[in-house]
């Protein structure tokens, strides 16, 4: 890790629609191991927010516990963040979202934080369709406690001690698909060309957006025999690139109609998905599940936007919540007053 963050910036850094440079989306210097995949994810989040011109202070970052959950310190220093309890970020995000539906929520978790201790909350977060982007930095091992297998470690993957994992790994993307998530994607920390537009699309999506990012652990899970090392992952990727065209921007590139699918998001943004095959339909949940499972059976990792339903009801809508954020309501809206209480008393006599 480095311990000094350079303050120097190129004087002609590009600016976004808000007049911000990418530096306005920086966080503190990372304390993760040099070469950690998670730092690439942090950079992708920073770049995605910059490119989408989201005001940094209108983003709230939430995380659980683990290497992954330290990440929110390392991007978006002008955003509030909450490093909560191991495996319990989904509930914090749910409460935060109920309190203020006006912010953009980015949750960062890990494979231990989500697939083990946080499995219950993760599933229920999907079930409630909380409007947020949920990124799992998935490296198949516990980093902060020095390399134990996690629940997403693949069957047979060899850990740092040389032992092959005897259990089937939990595939979070498949699980999210099965549970009805409205936006499911998978990517690789080393593929920023894919990850950045995915994050932008996830933030533009109104509802729960899940991105499972294979993010190798350089220290404990980057050796021969590990199925989540850099080289192993790179060699087995089946990538479906995509472009994200935000609302109001002109679509310039032309695409091959057979293998490209365009999906318009709720806010008018468009995703152009370059599919692995012309049969693949990103709006077909069963087909997406089949494709993910088939790739897995063939020892491949299918990345890209796997499934998207742009027209879902998020939790705020399901609960028919007021349009104004609940945290802005005052006495007039909330307190029924003494006359109402007197009539309640009367009914209790």
């Amino acid at each position: 890790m480095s311990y000094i963050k350079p303050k120097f910036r190129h004087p002609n850094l590009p600016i976004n629609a808000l007049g911000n440079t990418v530096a306005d989306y920086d966080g503190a210097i990372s304390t993760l191991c040099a070469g950690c995949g998670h730092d690439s994810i942090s950079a992708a989040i920073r770049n995605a927010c910059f490119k989408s011109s989201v005001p940094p202070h209108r983003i709230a970052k939430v995380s659980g516990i683990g290497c992954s959950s330290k990440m929110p310190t390392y991007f978006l220093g002008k955003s509030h963040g909450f490093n909560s309890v191991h495996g319990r970020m989904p509930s914090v995000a749910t409460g935060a979202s109920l309190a203020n539906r006006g912010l953009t929520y980015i949750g960062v978790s890990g494979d231990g934080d989500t697939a083990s201790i946080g499995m219950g909350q993760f599933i229920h977060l999907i079930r409630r369709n909380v409007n947020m982007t949920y990124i799992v930095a998935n490296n198949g091992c516990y980093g902060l406690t020095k390399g134990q297998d996690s629940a997403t470690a693949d069957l047979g993957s060899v850990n740092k001690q040389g032992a092959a994992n005897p259990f089937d790994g939990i595939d979070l993307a498949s699980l999210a698909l099965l549970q009805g998530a409205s936006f499911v994607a998978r990517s690789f920390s080393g593929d920023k060309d894919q990850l950045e537009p995915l994050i932008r699309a996830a933030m533009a999506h109104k509802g729960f957006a899940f991105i499972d990012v294979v993010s190798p652990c350089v220290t404990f899970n980057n050796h021969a025999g590990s199925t989540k090392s850099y080289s192993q992952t790179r060699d087995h990727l089946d990538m479906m690139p995509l472009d994200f065209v935000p609302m109001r921007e002109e679509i310039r590139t032309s695409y091959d109609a057979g293998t490209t699918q365009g999906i318009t998001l709720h806010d008018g943004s468009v995703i152009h998905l370059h599919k692995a095959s012309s049969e693949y339909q990103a709006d077909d949940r069963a087909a997406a599940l089949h494709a993910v499972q088939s790739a897995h059976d063939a020892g491949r990792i299918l990345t890209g936007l796997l499934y998207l339903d742009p027209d879902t009801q998020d939790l705020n809508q399901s609960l028919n919540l007021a349009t104004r954020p609940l945290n802005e309501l005052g006495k007039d809206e909330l307190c029924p007053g003494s006359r109402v209480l007197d009539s309640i008393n009367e009914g209790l006599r």
Partner: protein
Amino acid sequence: MKQIKGVNDFVVKFANVNGTGSASANHLFAKAIFRMGIPVSPRNIFPSNIQGLPTWYEVRVSKNGYLGRRGGVDMMVCVNPQSMEKDIASVEPGGYFLYDNTKPLAPHLKRDDITFFGIPLTEMCMREFETPRLQQLLKNVVYVGAMAALLNLKFSILKDLLNDQFKGKEKLISSNVQALEMGYQYATENYNCPLPIRLEMGGNAAPHILESEHILMNGNTAAALGAIYGGATVAAWYPITPSTSVVDAFAKYAQRMRIDPGSGKKNFAIVQAEDELAAIGMVVGAGWNGARAFTATSGPGLSLMSEFLGLAYFAELPAVLINVQRSGPSTGMPTRSQQSDVLAAAYASHGDTKQVLLFPATPRECFDMTVQAFDLTEQLQTPVILMSDLDLGMNDWMSPPLEWDDDRCMDRGKVLDADGLDKAEKWGRYLDVDGDGICYRTLPGTHPDKGAFFTRGSSKNEMAVYSESGDDYVQNVDRLLRKFDTAKSYVPKPKTHPPIEVKKPKTELKLGALFFGTSASPSYEAVEMLAAEGYPIDTMRIRAFPFHASIDAFIHSHDLVFVIEQNRDGQMRRLIINECEIPPGKLMPVLNYSGTPITARNIAGKIRETLKTKSADVVPLHPETA
């Protein structure tokens, strides 16, 4: 045979099978006494079961206005053969026993020191009503009718109550009234009515209860209303007896009072979480983001929430938790009352934690303290736990009416808005600018450039920057102690009453009693009983933790202090010993942990016993220090 006599002063108990509709009939009986203007306190003693197990409903009538349990039963109404043998045995000598004599009473169950009243409830209902459902339900109403005759309960009030209850369902009203009349008539024709124990309007010795136009309500409903009036917008919870009705009531009132008139949308959110871990997480997340949020739970839920309570303590986040206490873990006694979460709540979580607790003793206090909890949790930036219990939460209590001052505003504590951040010279989330241990917080989304920080548990410095420095940690947790000290002046103060004068005291010792919550009513009654016997005891009712300095002073100014509570380990006593500078031997535990609420007789008996055995060992305070 000498029969128990008493006007407006007796205990009636109903023994039923649960799931047979007895609860509403028994409630009708109690509510009618309340409507007569006579102090009454009903208690449901029920199993963790939907249908088939024994259940009891105890109604205390007390002209003196004692609302706690007295102990003992003067009249038993038994329609449950399963429990009949024990029920008969539990009646006081000279008492009364009403039963369904469709089947004759087994001769070995007879007692010659109590009076039996047989009424063929089943036979009458089989004859008069058509469906099995009605035959079962109305059996309960028939005995209420009979009780009206036996105890001089005003019949017209019963009819009024039925009319209120079944408004618009005329058929139900007429069959219920018919059942009432059947019972009333049978009792009048077959027995000498009314009995020596009876009800009479007026002539109570407790005018304070009648003058203030008391209401009859349970603590859970009152707490739910407190959450409405306190401005709660987010409720996250997981169903658990006996706290479930808090959120049920909140939902009911919110649906009525919190719908935006323009859009028809909700100015509140209720989420039934997947478990208590998630429920408190949502509350903490919502509080972090500036909404007033709460959860309601009970023992096992409190345990599950402990991790988050610790985080909220260290991260200094608001959260209101309504803990309706019950007996210990798992199945067995979830429907029985205790005050056994005191220590678990006071020190909830790992690390050095202390939580703010409030101890309501009446529905009115459940309301007031819940409202106050929402202010306190934001003023102090720490969780606040309302320590109710099953007895208070689920039973109907006579209570002063709920009051609201329309000028009252929410106190959101030290929160900087964008303007405040611009004006602040130097802002750090954990900088103790005012010296009271309470720092200025900011909410997400407030200001484009200022006030953002990363909320964490233990490892941070005053500027909210990650730190593993021991000095930073110590500075932070010491400030949290200072904040807890500040809290002493924010939380409700203990209540004292003028001591009861005893002309010729039988002891030279200065005696005191400390109690809280539902132990209060029977404690006051026990103290009056003991005063009449020549033992003056000063009282103090604890209403909050951290302890107010007057609690320390109270203990110091007495030779012997009884700590009356409903758990095995004397948890409040231990908490006092832990937190106050006092010799532990001064505090004598008076405990009940059977799961049924503590009684005045039980308390008085234990204090008598202690006075007999301990008095000799205690050296009275020097007059100057007393």
